């Protein structure tokens, strides 16, 4: 059993935004009633005039964010992923990404962390949507410590970005020594000759567990965290393909259009090797606690182990 974070990634996001706001008076947060839930609570207490809450109106929120950014502000626009990336998708695309405005869009309750609320609040397509929009950076942090560092790094680069966040405390994987560079992978285990696992988000913890089981079974698997889905670290993917000859991607997202697709786009154009996608298989899920849903919908540690064993046979 892995150690759990003390705070959720959305709270970690809010902490990072507050630190940025303390340093830069041009940092503004925009919310749609879920500001407190998305981690803006402390910032709203300290800088109430810089947290703009438009009520339950995500399209308005996103376009207000675009307008505020056009004046020269760094704007964080946050709500649940299903709303920021779906209800307000056109606003993100046409009014933030197209004019290349400095708005960082945060989507909370992403993946299956919408959990007990059911499909209306779960978001398994968001990375796919956001990744296909020109100018957009897409990041998927694994835990609270890495979220804080990733948010601060993403803020340093001008332009639109999507930050995918969860709802609950995640398995603790990293600490304050975590290093993040935009467009760079984070290799957790360099050696490997049988296969490479490329993962992100809440699945990183499960992949670490899976790698240990695989090692006990005699497999030597390279393990890569890919927090930055766009721009993606092509060099790292190509090296992993050449080094191991097989790749398994693992993500808390639909297997259509997410991390697996992004990796496959690099693999098939540069160094074709067999691949397997561990993710949600083009189905709507259901209400339930996140861990249980991950197990039910094909994202258990055993599923990852089985995917690696299967791909090794196909090499």
């Amino acid at each position, binding site marked *: 059993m892995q150690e759990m974070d003390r705070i959720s990634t959305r709270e970690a996001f809010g902490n990072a935004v507050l630190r940025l706001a303390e340093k830069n008076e041009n940092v503004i947060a925009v919310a749609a009633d879920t500001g407190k839930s998305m981690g803006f609570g402390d910032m709203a207490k300290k800088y109430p*005039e810089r947290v*703009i809450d438009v009520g339950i109106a995500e399209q308005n929120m996103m376009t207000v964010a675009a307008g505020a950014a056009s004046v020269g502000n760094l704007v964080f626009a946050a709500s649940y992923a299903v709303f920021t990336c779906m209800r307000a998708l056109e606003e993100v695309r046409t*009014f933030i990404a197209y004019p290349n405005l400095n708005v960082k869009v945060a989507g909370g309750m992403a993946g299956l962390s919408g959990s007990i609320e059911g499909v209306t609040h779960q978001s398994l397509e968001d990375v796919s949507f956001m990744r296909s929009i020109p100018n957009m950076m897409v990041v998927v942090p694994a835990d609270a410590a890495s979220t804080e560092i990733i948010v601060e790094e993403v803020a340093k680069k001008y332009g639109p970005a999507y930050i995918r966040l969860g709802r609950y405390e995640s398995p603790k994987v990293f600490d304050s020594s975590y290093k993040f560079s935009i467009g760079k992978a984070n290799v957790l285990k360099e050696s490997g000759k049988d296969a490479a696992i490329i993962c992100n988000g809440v699945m990183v913890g499960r992949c670490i567990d899976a790698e240990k089981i695989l090692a006990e079974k005699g497999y030597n698997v390279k393990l890569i965290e890919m927090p930055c889905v766009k721009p993606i670290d092509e060099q790292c993917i190509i090296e992993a393909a050449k080094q191991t000859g097989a790749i398994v991607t693992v993500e808390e997202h639909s297997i259509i259009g997410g991390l697996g697709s992004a990796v496959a786009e690099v693999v098939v154009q540069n160094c074709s090797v067999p691949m397997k996608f561990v993710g949600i298989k083009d189905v709507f899920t259901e209400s339930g606690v996140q861990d249980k849903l991950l197990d039910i919908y094909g994202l258990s540690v055993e599923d990852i182990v089985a995917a690696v064993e299967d791909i090794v046979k196909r090499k």
Partner: protein
Amino acid sequence: MTCKNEELVRIAKTIRRDIIEMAYKAGGATHPGPALSCADIVTALYFKIMNVRPDEPDWADRDRLILSKGHASPAIYAALAEKGYFDKELFNTLRFPGSRLQGHPDMRKTPGVDMTSGSLGHGLSAGLGVSLALKLRKSPARVYVILGDGELDEGIVWEAAMSAPNFGADNLTAIVDYNHFQSGGCTDKIQCLEPLVDKWKAFGWRVYEANGHNMDDIINKLEMAKMSICKPTVIIAHTIKGKGASFMENNNAWHQKMPTEAQYLQALKELE
């Protein structure tokens, strides 16, 4: 009654001629009817009301104009060129690949365009964001948003309409170009907006009505809007779609259409 703003009336005529030029020479059909409809409003804003610097398009404290009904882009392209933001030679490139003049306004390609727009309904929200950010910076700048009547069908307009008074966005002025037509036909039949004045009042706005083709009236109401405290202002401007070219007036066929040479020449003659 004589017009106090004769020079503006003359400029508006030039703007209309340029709209016709673009309608005839663009890389595809433009929207001359919607552009002519708001030509007087655009003229009043750029040539009398707004504090802008054509030689410094990114001046931080400039007043902003967002053309929410972005398909009327030739109206602001004409005004921006007349102000000196760019050469009128660019008109001939409109809607052609490689042009700085896109089909709908693009803040990154066209000097003087303050916000990308044209996906209907979004201008007021964007204007609210600009307005709040300017207030945070203690800027004296004001924000003007020109809305089409048809786009008031969009839900996001009313999200913004509800929130702007809540934030006390008194530096924000919306102008509704109420010509009673939208792409598919008559607004009164497709999605009746009435009682439009009452709707905006109920949402907490200061509301004025104006004759959108009477320069004195437009200027007067825009000046009154500047004096608003705590509340945003909306001006319901009663207009005629296609105003200025007789055969285009109230003829929705000219919502988007390229004129023939004969129609082009006739419109220019009427606007001499």
